[in-house]
């Protein structure tokens, strides 16, 4: 057998050589034959024939030279490839001959493939690309478990015990957010992290230039060293190659640059989703003796690299044991025994993955509709080409050859469609920037790469195979004899018609599902935007500032600075009210303190509830238009020496003192050793986390009375006109007190409200766009099918009209078929929606996934436009003169 395989391989090699050398071989062979004929002729002449006779005799004796060339080609070249090339050239000719069909088909494909490629490149960039760490699947965030099962940050002392006692982690590091002001050029507030010295070793990142942090640097009172991101190094230090070892001014302190991270590393760790990328890292430099290193000082995030062979579950079990022992040793410091381990991928990308996979699912519906539409187009075309196919079959083409020709033609179409479909994917990042999807991590890494190209070509070919199935089936039923008869009616009408009906039904069903999803999202967003945030965001400008410099080591100086800044802002023309607060709602700030109400304090105060803390200057409620329900507001009289007072929100009052009057009650905030605060007023609730979240407990304390007055404050300025107009005047006013203080995050409050719903808006815009595309494709399909069937029945209509049928009757006759398919599609679509919309539940707000109003509205819309699509060709048929119709064909 080996020998035979060997000879087959040799034959193939010869064929390949022959195929590649092509015409040269043809000529050589022709020469050889001509030589032979000539020699033969000469021989006959020598035997006494005339030249003509000899030539004829030679040809006779030699045989058919054309056939011989064919034999040679068969033997020496690859006929499959040659005929494929023929098919391809034929396909190009055919497609160019019907530009209308080609354009519609390519557009359909481009829409389907383009939408899918765009969403896939999004999924690819955000979710599928590897994380920028060494073996990212070994990294996990370690949380303390709260009593209610939620995740909590850790205190430094806890971290030290975890680190010393665990055997599961190769490295365990912690970080917390840090927003230093870089005083190089214009003072700029940066987004940074304070990290333990082993942080980069834990992640597996090496500095591009310079060195990593050293363990001995990780303590108080040593050199303060920082690591720069590649982007910061470029932006602020013009890529200075000698930056390592130099000092830079930050927060009125000098820091030494230890190194610069590679450009490929973009930090994904940030506690504030609106803060932008982290660009600077500083050694944590904690010591267990510091007051902020306590076990209950939950402000650090722990990240660990698991040892090889240790699973997340094993590590979790071990950490639970350690945590239980700690809880036993310090019962007052822990809320609950236990830890939660979250794999880094889930932590960073988990929140983004649900909506993205939802979008991927939705966009696949668009592809299916495009497939159905293309199949429909091809089917209609196949009917017109029946005779062509019949002729080819009669001339000896096999059925396989005919189908292959179709496939080649359609592959060409789909590759054209795929090429056009790559365009939206190219534009996608820009489009997304416009519609605002900046909440997605790694959005800047969305681009075309080989994975996206592979995906695009894959779905393009898949589309073709699916779309070619129907017409191939149709054509394989073609009866030769019937087709070749002059003036014959199309024979396979029944099969074709049924197939196309089915395609229309599925197109309608798919579009309806998308439309209903979009409708539900639209209603949700509407409902959400109707939710009152608890304050009036219109015409309020916010800007953040923080104090830095030696002179602000004095608490009174900090208080004085902010109160005079507020005074200056109030004095500006066009300003109605101004105030400052440690945090503002919907801006992504998180600041909570334990709320220990007198008489309701647990044996372990850690078990007491916590409330969002707003450290405010007088006038905050007025500026924000947060209603004061009872009692009094904070006033300038509540100074550092006056009795400590605070305001609580409605929810706080209801939860802490149900059925009681909270005014005059006393509370300890955070620290149990500090003096009591007295409740003097009750405010309305504010949506702090998001419009879709129930307001939690909130309290307002005077900046003048807080023991360590906040140095990072946000000004809120209510203006008469557009808030942006006051921006530069406001900055000047603040700088007129102290020009060295940085101002950042200048934004209208309304922007923050918009940002808080942007993920929903993002999903709505995309799914809405898919629904519109699908609907448009379906309408083209419905129109096409109705127009076709009307054209087929022109003669029938003429006869009916001649026999006295009335117009409305005929109209009904023509509409019935199309609308029946639409109605079947609607039924299927409603059923599919009931099955699928529950996956949207996480994106819905105050709307049931089966909201009857949305369903009814969307069905009505679809039926109306579908009826219009049927109506147009039907009306055209009505206008036909019966005589003309009878002579048709």
């Amino acid at each position, binding site marked *: 057998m080996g020998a035979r395989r060997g*000879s087959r391989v*040799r*034959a193939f090699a*010869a064929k390949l050589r022959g195929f590649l050398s092509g015409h040269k071989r043809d000529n*050589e*062979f022709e*020469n*050889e*034959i001509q*030589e*032979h004929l000539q*020699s*033969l002729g000469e021989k006959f002449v020598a035997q006494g024939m005339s030249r003509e006779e000899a030539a004829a005799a030679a040809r006779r*004796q*030699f*045989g*058919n*030279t054309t*056939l*011989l060339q064919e*034999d*040679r080609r068969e*033997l*020496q070249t690859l006929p499959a490839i040659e005929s494929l090339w023929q098919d391809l050239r034929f396909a190009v000719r055919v497609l160019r001959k019907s530009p209308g069909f080609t354009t519609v088909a390519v557009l359909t494909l481009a829409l389907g493939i383009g939408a899918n490629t765009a969403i896939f490149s999004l999924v690819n960039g955000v979710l599928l690309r590897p994380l920028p760490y060494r073996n990212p699947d070994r990294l996990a965030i370690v949380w303390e478990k709260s009593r209610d099962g939620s995740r909590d940050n850790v205190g430094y002392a806890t971290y030290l015990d975890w680190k010393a006692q665990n055997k599961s982690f190769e490295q365990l590091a912690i970080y917390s957010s840090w927003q230093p002001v870089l005083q190089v050029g214009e003072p700029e507030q940066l987004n940074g992290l304070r990290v333990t010295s082993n942080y980069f070793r834990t992640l597996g990142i090496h500095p591009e230039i310079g060195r990593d942090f050293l363990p001995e640097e990780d303590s108080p009172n040593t050199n303060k060293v920082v690591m720069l991101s590649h982007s910061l190094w470029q932006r602020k230090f013009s890529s200075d190659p000698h930056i390592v070892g130099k000092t830079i001014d930050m927060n009125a302190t000098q820091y030494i640059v230890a190194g610069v991270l590679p450009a490929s590393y973009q930090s994904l760790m940030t506690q504030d989703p609106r803060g932008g990328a982290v660009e600077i890292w500083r050694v944590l430099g904690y010591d267990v003796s510091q007051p902020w290193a306590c076990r209950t000082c939950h402000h650090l995030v722990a990240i660990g690299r698991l040892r090889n062979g240790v699973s997340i579950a094993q590590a979790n079990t071990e950490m639970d044991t350690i945590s239980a022992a700690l809880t036993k040793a310090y019962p007052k410091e822990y809320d609950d025994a236990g830890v939660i381990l979250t794999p880094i991928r889930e932590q960073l990308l988990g929140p983004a993955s649900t909506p993205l996979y939802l979008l991927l699912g939705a966009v696949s519906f668009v592809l299916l509709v495009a497939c159905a539409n293309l199949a429909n187009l091809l089917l209609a075309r196949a009917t017109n080409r029946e005779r062509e196919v019949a002729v080819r079959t009669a001339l000896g083409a096999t059925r396989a050859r005919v189908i292959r020709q179709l496939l080649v033609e359609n592959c060409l179409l789909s590759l054209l469609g795929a090429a056009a479909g790559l365009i939206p994917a190219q534009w996608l990042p820009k489009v997304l920037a416009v519609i605002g999807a900046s909440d997605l991590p790694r959005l800047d890494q969305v681009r075309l790469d080989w994975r996206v190209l592979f995906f695009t070509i894959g779905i393009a070919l898949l589309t073709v195979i699916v779309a070619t199935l129907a017409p191939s089936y149709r054509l394989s039923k073609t009866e030769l004899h019937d087709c070749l008869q002059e003036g014959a009616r199309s024979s396979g009408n029944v099969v074709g018609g049924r197939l196309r009906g089915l395609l229309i039904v599925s197109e309608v069903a798919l579009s309806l599902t998308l439309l209903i999803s979009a409708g539900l999202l639209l209603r949700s967003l509407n409902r959400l935007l109707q939710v009152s945030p608890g304050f009036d965001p219109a015409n309020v400008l916010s800007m953040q500032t923080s104090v830095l410099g030696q002179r602000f080591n004095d608490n009174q100086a900090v208080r004085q600075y902010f109160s005079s800044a507020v005074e200056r802002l109030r004095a500006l023309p066009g300003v109605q009210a101004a105030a400052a607060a440690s945090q503002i709602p919907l801006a992504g700030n998180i600041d909570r303190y334990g709320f220990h109400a007198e008489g309701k304090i647990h044996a372990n105060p850690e078990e007491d509830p916590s409330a969002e803390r707003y450290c405010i200057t007088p006038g905050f409620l007025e500026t924000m238009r947060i209603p004061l329900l009872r009692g009094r507001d904070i006033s300038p009289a509540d100074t550092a020496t006056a009795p400590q007072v605070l305001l609580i929100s409605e929810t706080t009052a209801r939860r802490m003192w149900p059925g009681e009057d909270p005014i005059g009650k006393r509370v300890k905030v955070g620290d149990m050793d500090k003096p009591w605060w007295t409740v003097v007023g009750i405010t309305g609730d504010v949506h702090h986390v998001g419009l879709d979240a129930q307001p939690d407990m909130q309290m307002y304390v005077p900046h003048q009375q807080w023991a360590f007055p906040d140095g990072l404050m946000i000004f809120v300025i209510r203006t008469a006109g557009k808030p942006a107009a006051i921006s530069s005047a406001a900055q000047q006013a603040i700088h007129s007190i102290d020009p060295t203080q940085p101002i950042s995050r200048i934004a209208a409050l309304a922007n923050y409200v918009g940002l808080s719903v942007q993920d929903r808006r993002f999903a709505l815009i995309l799914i809405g766009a898919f629904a519109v595309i699908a609907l448009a494709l379906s309408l083209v399909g419905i129109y096409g099918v109705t127009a076709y069937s009307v054209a087929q029945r022109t003669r029938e209509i003429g006869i009916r009209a001649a026999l006295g049928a009335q117009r409305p009757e005929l109209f009904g006759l023509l509409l019935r078929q199309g609308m029946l398919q639409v109605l079947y599609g609607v039924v299927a679509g409603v059923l599919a929606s009931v099955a699928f919309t529950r996956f949207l539940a996480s994106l819905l707000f105050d709307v049931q996934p089966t909201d009857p109003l949305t369903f009814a509205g969307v069905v009505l819309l679809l039926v109306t436009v579908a009826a219009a699509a049927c109506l147009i060709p039907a009306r055209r048929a009505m206008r036909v003169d019966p005589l003309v119709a009878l002579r048709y064909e």
Partner: protein
Amino acid sequence: MDAKKSEVLQGTLDLMILKTLQTLGPLHGFGIARRIEQVSRDVLQLNEGTVYTSLLRLQQQGWIAAEWGTSENNRKAKFYSITKRGLKQLELETENWERISGVIGRVLRLEEEK
């Protein structure tokens, strides 16, 4: 059918060409055709074009090799010669042929004796 008949013929033709090249050494297509004509003495009616189909097939199997050269009357011509593998194949085919023709001969004689 047609194909089968020509296949038998082609097989025989292949064998004849190999034998011719073994006996006479390198030869062009015209020469091979003349030699077969001469040997068969009009018993075999043959389209000389089929010689070339046969030559192509033999080349593909690597049993003969081709080289451009100059013919007796100073024309450019392709000369074919038998290869080592061709010689082996010829030996094999000859044996085969003799065995089969022997068997057929015996069968035919038996039929006559009956």
